[in-house]
């Protein structure tokens, strides 16, 4: 290689001028500044109109925001979200494993489940569950094709509004989360399973300790999308006259005729829930990105602390940390 390399240029090329005394000036971005000013002006105008336009009726919003009935509705919404979210993902996980199994029967049952629940409107599913008593008067648990019954009850007493809501939301959620979880599992390299089984690690531990922690990275963003969708999606159970947040607000504004402010009350609560969930999402995703990134980025809290440490607190030992 060295034989072909061009001869040293020191004596032929003109000497490089010495720039060591020059000052460095970063490039200027005038259009970035123009853009920033325009956007800031727009945001200010919107904020101004929100505050000054009396028709938003912020007083009414504040009055109802923490009213007992609204808070009760909020609790119902959270309850529905939590129960059907958890049950939906557990069932979805089982469905995903069935779909990935080697048994053709399990695969087709899982596929059919997702097919049915993804292709019927949630509204129809909820009404069907609630009116199950019309289709089947009694529900019983026993040995099929015999007279043995362990348990029997009137359908209408069994399926309350709450039960119909949870059933509908859970099964629907399971169908979607099954696909999300399956996608996550498929995204993990086949070599990981091979290495784990070559090490004699049992099948269940292979899934829970090797595949799932890696699959979580692909699962989490979509899963949080689903959960956040579910928070607002629970409002659909108003068709069952179930008094969650949205239904409660509707009942109130039908009485008081303050439609917009009360819709704002519900909206603000949804914003609060979504914001809290987003914070959870950030930290959970960060936890599961262990090893996937060469270096983990700092959390906002760590950034703030670092900023404080370097800029505000100790100015004499500027380079210390």
């Amino acid at each position, binding site marked *: 290689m060295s034989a072909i390399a061009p001869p040293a240029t020191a004596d032929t090329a003109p000497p490089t001028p010495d720039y060591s005394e020059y000052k460095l000036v970063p490039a200027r971005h005038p259009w970035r500044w123009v853009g920033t000013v325009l956007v800031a002006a727009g945001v200010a105008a919107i904020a101004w109109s929100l505050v000054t336009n009396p028709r938003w009726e912020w007083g009414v919003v504040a009055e109802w925001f923490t009213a007992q009935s609204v808070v009760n509705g909020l609790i119902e919404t959270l309850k529905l979200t939590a129960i059907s979210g958890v049950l939906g993902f557990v069932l979805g996980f089982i469905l995903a494993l069935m779909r990935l199994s080697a048994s053709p029967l399990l695969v087709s049952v899982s596929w059919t489940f997702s097919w049915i629940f993804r292709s019927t409107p949630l509204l129809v599913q909820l009404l069907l569950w609630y009116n199950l008593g019309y289709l089947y008067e009694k529900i019983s648990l026993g040995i099929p094709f015999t007279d043995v019954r362990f348990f029997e009850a009137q359908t209408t007493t069994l399926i309350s509004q709450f039960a119909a809501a949870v059933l509908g939301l859970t099964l629907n959620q399971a169908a979607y989360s099954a696909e999300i979880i399956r996608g996550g599992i498929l995204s993990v390299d086949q070599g990981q399973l091979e290495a*784990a089984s070559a090490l004699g*690690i049992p099948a269940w531990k292979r899934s829970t*300790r090797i595949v799932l922690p890696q699959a979580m990275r692909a699962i989490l963003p979509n899963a949080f999308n689903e959960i956040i969708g579910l928070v607002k999606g629970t409002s659909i159970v108003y068709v069952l006259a179930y008094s969650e947040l949205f239904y409660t607000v509707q009942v109130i504004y039908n009485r008081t005729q303050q439609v917009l402010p009360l819709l704002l009350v519900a909206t603000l609560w949804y914003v609060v829930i979504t914001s809290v969930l987003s914070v959870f999402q950030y930290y959970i995703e960060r936890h599961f990105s262990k090893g996937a990134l060469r270096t983990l980025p700092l959390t906002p809290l760590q950034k703030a602390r670092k900023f404080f440490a370097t800029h505000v607190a100790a100015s004499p030992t500027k380079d210390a940390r």
Partner: protein
Amino acid sequence: MSIIAARKESTTTAQADAENQTAASVTSTPVAPATRGQVDISNVRKSFGVTEVLKGVSLSVQPGGVAVIVGPSGSGKSTLLRTINHLEKVDGGYITIDGELVGYEVRGNKLHELREKDILKQRTHIGMVFQSFNLFPHLTALENVIEAPIVAQKRSKAEARKRGLELLDRVGLKDRADAYPRQLSGGQQQRVAIARALALDPKILLFDEPTSALDPELVNEVLDVIRELAKSGTTLIIVTHEMGFARDVADTVVFMDQGQIVEAGTPQDIFANPREERTRSFFSKVIEPAFNI
């Protein structure tokens, strides 16, 4: 099948030769004679669909022996290696390790496939190192090494950690124990993978092209670790394209082509005086250019 019988004979004579030679030159005998890790592959056949990838392969490796398998791409080297720990099921023939059948048990006059649990147990005696490392990216180097001892062998965490650090030290990576695989170079990752395979204290170690995913300057750090292992009395079966390394470390070189072992013998026999025309033409393509640089 007569070809295979003949070949098996030639293998044994080659081994006898090798033993005579080691008797003469004491340097190449292992420090303590190994007593475990005898591998016998007997007439193994394997097809994928209609293509027969292994066409009756027989091979014996002595305890503590180092067998290096070479051959053109697609000749079935990886497949043969994967049958040894039952990652690939055979269609015919059988494999024993220290006399124990791999993946099967005898019931009556039939070989019944073992339950998953028992196969996993057998695999803990057979370490495997992959071309693409296959480290678990969400676990640190040390966690990678101690995962199987804790989960598959139910050892205590403290004990596994202690042994894990020893092993990382042995492959020269004690100070990187807490690094994640993506924070390590390819050569370092492969050394962690070797430590991980050693953590189960296997009788046999299988290497499938352990250096072919590495940059040339990282190859030697991995080969040096394998050279050390070769002296330690663990049986090694290595698939590689590094002919110089094969010549150094092997006591048996096996040349495979089109799903068959064409010939096997000491490095001198195979590299310097190959009997078969196919072997000669393969090495003339692979070795000469490599050694002329």
